[in-house]
Each structure stands twice: as C-alpha cells, then as structure tokens.
C-alpha cells in the first residue's frame, strides 16, 4: 500500500537523492517567473489606469521611441537564463541523466515494458542477464527467457513491482516490447521514455524505504491510464528475503 501522505497539493515528497535538487530548480524558476509576472502586471495596471483616455485625452507621440533602456527586460532575462542553463540546468541534468553510477555498487535491473505492464529482470547469482528472445515471449514468459541457457537459469522476474534495497543506487536498463512507454516515479522526480529498439539507462537512489508509484507518462494505448507499478524500497534483509522467496517460486531451488 502506498502511503497517501506521499502526495500533497503541491509536489509529492522528495524521496530520491536528486529529488531535492530538482525541487530547488523548480523553486528558482517559479520564483523568477513570479517576479517577472508581478513586475509586468504592476507596470501594466499602472499604465491602464494612468493612460485611460478619460485621464489622458491626448497620446504622447514621442513615447513610442525607446532608447537602449527598453532592452533592459531582454538583457535581464538573457543574463538570468545563461545562469540558469550553466549553473542550475546542466549540472543537475548531468547528475540525473548522464552520470550513471558504477554498476558494482548498484542494484542493476533490466526492465521491459509492454502494453500495459512493467516487467523487471534480476540477473541472479551470476550477475548476467539472460537474453531476451522475442520468439519465446508469451503470457507465461514475458521476457522470452530461455531457461535452459546458463545465463538465464538463475534470473528472477517480477511484474509491476521493482524491488530494491535501500542504501544502493538502482540502475534500470529499459526497453520496450511494443510501443513507447515512459517510466515515471513522481516521488523520485525521474522520468524516461522507454522506446522499442533502444536500451536506455535510468538511475535513482531512494532516501527511505516504502512503496512509490510508477506511472506511464507516454500514451501507449487504451490501458495507458491504468499502466502502473510500484517501486518497493526495502531494507537489505527484506530484499534478500524477497529474492529468496522469488527464487523458490520461480526456479524451485533455494540459493
């Protein structure tokens, strides 16, 4: 059960390491927008009152020529945007989308999306993901794993629930079987389209245990609205127990 207090009338709780940085950039941009809007509106309203035809029957022809001063709003916006791009935008973007953490210290999971489900693949003890073969895909084998192949023998599959231990970043390698989906976890402030024919990485590092909602953010057909899943962040012990239970259920053998 997802904790309803994760969500408020504003932003959801910030539950990943970079979420508060995204929030900071949202705050900065919205503060700037508010300042610009309020300043303009004050000028606008004063002009409307002061220069209504009742109060000002004759317009001033010369007022249509502005000196360089009239470019001040542009100059201010330009400076602000340069700062925004290079100081705020690029570093946070790089952290979220470009600087994927090293795989050794992370929980690496394969994800394959389809209409209208998310399937997660764990590599098992060998650390190698079994190949996904479209020819073998069916309702009981969503990923098309060849269980006789050594790399796929110990793989664990989980549908619509991504389990990961707290304290390590999660790296997802995402692909799609059919159409474009988009993996979105509001509490983590992360989103990425999942495109057939591509294998796109995404990472996050959760701040606390709990369940977080995965929504699909790209129209993917009639079930788009109900294509949801959950990220389950658990303690390392709970995670090990969950893996063990899955192993018993899916492979019939304890580790």
């Amino acid at each position, binding site marked *: 059960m997802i904790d309803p207090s994760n*969500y408020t*009338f504003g932003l959801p709780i910030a539950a990943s390491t970079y979420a508060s940085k995204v929030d900071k950039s949202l705050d900065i941009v919205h503060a700037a927008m508010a300042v610009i809007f309020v300043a303009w509106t004050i000028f606008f309203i004063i002009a409307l009152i002061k220069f209504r035809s009742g109060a000002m029957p004759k317009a001033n022809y010369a007022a249509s020529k502005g000196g360089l001063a009239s470019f001040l709003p542009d100059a201010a916006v330009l400076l602000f945007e340069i700062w925004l791009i290079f100081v705020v935008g690029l570093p946070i973007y790089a952290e979220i989308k470009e600087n994927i953490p090293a795989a050794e210290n992370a929980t690496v999971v394969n994800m394959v999306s389809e209409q209208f489900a998310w399937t997660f693949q764990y590599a098992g003890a060998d650390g190698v993901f079994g190949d996904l073969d479209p020819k073998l895909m069916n309702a009981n084998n969503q990923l098309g794993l060849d269980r006789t192949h050594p790399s796929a023998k110990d793989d664990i599959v989980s549908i619509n629930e991504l389990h990961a231990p707290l304290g390590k970043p999660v790296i997802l390698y995402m692909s799609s079987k059919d159409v474009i989906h988009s993996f979105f976890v509001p*509490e983590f402030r992360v989103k990425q389209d999942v495109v057939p024919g591509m294998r796109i990485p995404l990472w996050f590092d959760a701040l606390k245990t709990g369940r977080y909602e995965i929504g699909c953010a790209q129209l993917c057909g009639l079930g788009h609205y109900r294509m949801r899943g959950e990220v389950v962040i658990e303690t390392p012990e709970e995670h090990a127990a969950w893996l063990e239970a899955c192993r018993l259920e899916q492979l019939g053998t304890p580790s």
Partner: protein
Amino acid sequence: MTNHDTHELPFWRKYIFSLDHKVIGLQYLFTAMVFLLIGFAFVIIMRWQLAYPGTKIPLIGGWLGDSFAPGGIMLPEFYNQLGAMHGTIMVFLGIVPLGVGFYGNYFLPLQIGAPDMAFPRLNLASYWLYLPGGLLMLSSFMMPGGAAQSGWTSYPPLSVIAPSGQTMWLLSMVVIITSSLLGSINFIVTTINMRAPGLTWFRLPIFVWSQFITAILLLFAFPVLEGGALLQLLDRVIHTSFYLPAGLVISGVQMTNGGGGSALLYQHLFWFLAHPEVYVLILPAMGVVAEIIATNTRKPLFGYKTVVAAIIFLGALSFVVWAHHMFLSGMKTSLARIFMTTTMVISLPSVAILSCLVFSLWGSSIRFSVPMMFALAFLPLFGIGGLTGLPLGLLPTDIYLHDTYYVIGHFHYVVVTGTLVALMGGIYYWFPKMFGRRMNEGWGKVHFWGTVITMNGIFFPMFIQGMAGVQRRLYDFNAQAHNLLTTTAPAIGKMSLSELQYICAIALLIFQIPFLINIFYSLFKGPKTEENPWKATTLEWDCPSPPPHGNFTHELKVVRGPYEYSVPGDKTDWSPQSEGGR
C-alpha cells in the same frame, strides 16, 4: 489574375467557388469556427469523464453507441480518439485556418493595398482542400475501430499498430498540409509583389509581417511533416518499417514486418514541423494584437523595428528548437543540452515583442473598446503561457514536468488564452470592415469577461495538477494513487479540481452563445458604420466597408509608416498611411 468585372456572378461562383480573397477568407472563418466548436465539444465530453469517471455521459451518452460508449459510459479507446481528434482539429482545422486562412486571406491583401491575392485560383484550391481534408478527418470516426487514437502527435509504433482510423488521419493530414502549403506560397508572393506604391518593407503593419513570416514557416516546416506522415502511411498500408525496430512483440504476437526502423525518426520529423507550428499559431495573434493596440492607444507602436526584427529572429530560431519536445525520448543527452540552449534563446524575441506591446501603453490614450479588452487580456495571459514554458525548456525541471498536465496548461495558455483570445478580439475589431456593420458592445463585454474568467478556471488548475505529477492523456485519474488529490478528490469544499474544470468548460461554452448571436445578428441587423469607425491608419480602412470585389476604389500612394497616431502638429490624432486617405 482576376478581372474585377462588375457583372453579377452566379451564387455558386460568388460564395462557393469564389476567387475573391475576402469571400475565401470568410469561408475559412465560418468553417474554422465550426471546427473549433466541434473540437471544443469533444473536450467537454472528455472533461465529463475526467470529472465523473465511469458515469453515464449526460444528454448525448445514449446516442454514442456501443463501440464508443456502451450504456453511455465512455470507453478508454473513445477517450483516446476524442483526445487525438481534439488536438488535431484545434491545431490544424481550427486555429491555423482561423489565424492564417481567415485573417491572412482577408486582411493581408487589404493592408498592403492589393486588389486580391497573387494567385486567386491557388487560394480557391487551398480552401477546397482544407474543407474536404477536415471532413475526411471527422469521417474517421466511422472507420472500424474508430478515429485516430494515438494523440495528435501520432507517435509510432503505437500509431502504426492502431486501428484503421489512423490511416484516415494520415490521408487527411496530407490533404490539409497541401492546403496550407498552397496558401503559404500565395501569402509570400502576394506580400513580396503586390504592395501598394510607397509601401516599403518598414511601412508594413506588424500584422503583415507576422503573416509573412508565418507563411515562410509553413512553407519550410510542413513538407517535413508531410514526408513523415507519408512514411507512416507506408508503414501502415504496405508494411514497410521506417519507424519500426526489429523484434516487436505486440500483445504477445511477434510482428513480422518490423526491422531497421527508428521510432525516434518520426518524432524528429513531427516536431521539426510542430515546433515552428507553435509560432504559426501565435504570430498571427501577435499581429492582430499589435494592430488593435496601436489603434486603441492612439500612439505609434513602441519599438516597431524591434518587433519586426524579433518576429524574423523568432521565425528563424523556431527551426532549431524542435527537439526540446524530446528531452526524455532517449535521444543523445548532448543533443538535449544544445536544444535547451536554443530554447532558452528563443524566449528573448518573445520577451522583446511582449515588452514592446506593453511599453506601447505608456504615454498613450487608451480606449477600452471590446477589441482592446481582448488585446489587453492577451498580454498577461500569453505571458503566463510564455513563462510556464521556461521550466519545460530547462532540462532538470522538464524531467519532472514533461508529459504532465503542466505541459497541457502551458500550451493552452499560449494557444487559447493567448491566440484564441487575440483572434476573438480581431473579429470585433474588423467586423465593421468586413460587413459594414458594428457588433454590440455590451454583449461583447459579457462575452469577454465570461470567456477570460472561465478559460482560467479550466487551465490554471492544470499547473497544480502538473506539479503534483498528474500525467497527461489519462482516461481515469482514479487508477493511480498520486493523481487523486489534485484531480478527483474534494479540493474546494466538496468540489474536485476536475469538477471545477468541467463546470468552467461548460460555462465557457455558454459564454460563446452571446458571441455567436452577436456575430450573426450584427451581420444583418447591426448598426451601419462608416469606412473607418476606429479612425485607424492602415490601408484596410481606406476602402469601403465591406470592401467591393477588387477592394480599393481609388489609386493608393503610401506616404508614411503604419501607426502614425497623434502626430504633433496634425489636425487629427490619426494620419493615414495613404496620401489623401481619411
């Protein structure tokens, strides 16, 4: 070239297959208004489902049939069809035909002092491709599986595997795009070749500049989408795979005709059009606002040359920002960095134009006529639309806000409270010119306040919803926990935000009734007006109202710039562009 014979043409030549730019313009006006109402009706049905999910649609629910709404309750497929068609109709069959087809056709020749468009037959062909293209689009609801349902963007592979309504969408788009291309060539040639003597480039009204640049954008951007649509048509009809990678498995069945294609290729082709398209939607509106403001402030427009330069710069830059719609598409991250930078830069000319329009008020003598109220409302409301583009253009904030209701709020503030409000004001402004009669001021004010307030009631909550993470294109918000609070849960007393939005949408519809009655009543019964009721300076006010075939009854010689109001030493507060005009 037309010959401006005075003999009476038969009805079908005068009003149906007319070569007169004004009649064609009016055909665009009334057709676009019908399409706008249809697109609006679609979204009202959607809004019902969002406010009261899974309940019977009132009044029309029982009529929709089992393939759309069994028992009057909407199916998700139908919701997606209405969504895709709402977007397509509003953009390609509503706003563009209104802003370009109507405004450009009717007023561009008048403002440059031309007797007609350069190619009247091309103009005729343009309208007569637009109307059948639009009807073809609507008819797709009758295809097996219903109309297109992959969003107005129609991203493959979803669109390639969609039911046959998508084929109809593509065919219809090819027809509509061809229509726009014919129109754009016509506007460009007309502006370059048919300006009245003395009407130099820097004496052109801002409206003409905006239409001219818009036409150039259409000419260069639309062929790319036409090609993109044709490739998708091939993927669907003869099973090529331009957009399909290998190994697709659809509903458990392996797809045999995929391989070698790229899903992202289509997105690049689509947005290469669709971003310039945003400026196609907004530039004509800015042109209309500039005309209304200059006339009603009785003062030259502030920074005329700055505005012209900004419009040209905006047009050029609009071709290098398209991939900001694709920040999360999986394209190379270094591309995202470049497109963020160009996107931030394009805000500058927009700021410049808006600044000049607001500065124009300073030192003026403002007449609060109905068109002026619409033009004034455009400024802060378009401002909200523009400002909310900022966090969508910035990479880290876009990661969170992309594909949420924040985006929907942003572009509806730009296109509806921005463009549509401006274009409504333009109808009040030029109505006396088009029909020689005036519209009712009092009902115009009722229409204005009702429209502006209800529009905000629909669109402002979208920012709150977007910030809460509500994704777009959802048929039922209740299916996901994070969406509930800002959509279907009680927010204002017992009312949810979705209910508020639905009620405002219904109210917005009701407030269009006085507008429509005002138009059609005033057409026949409005008080008659003179040639130039607003005492405006540009050339269209220098011909009879309504202008006869061939427009101008005397030779024009342009002697000054477009907005010479309150010139010191002149006996009136307006100095018309043409010599001897008054």
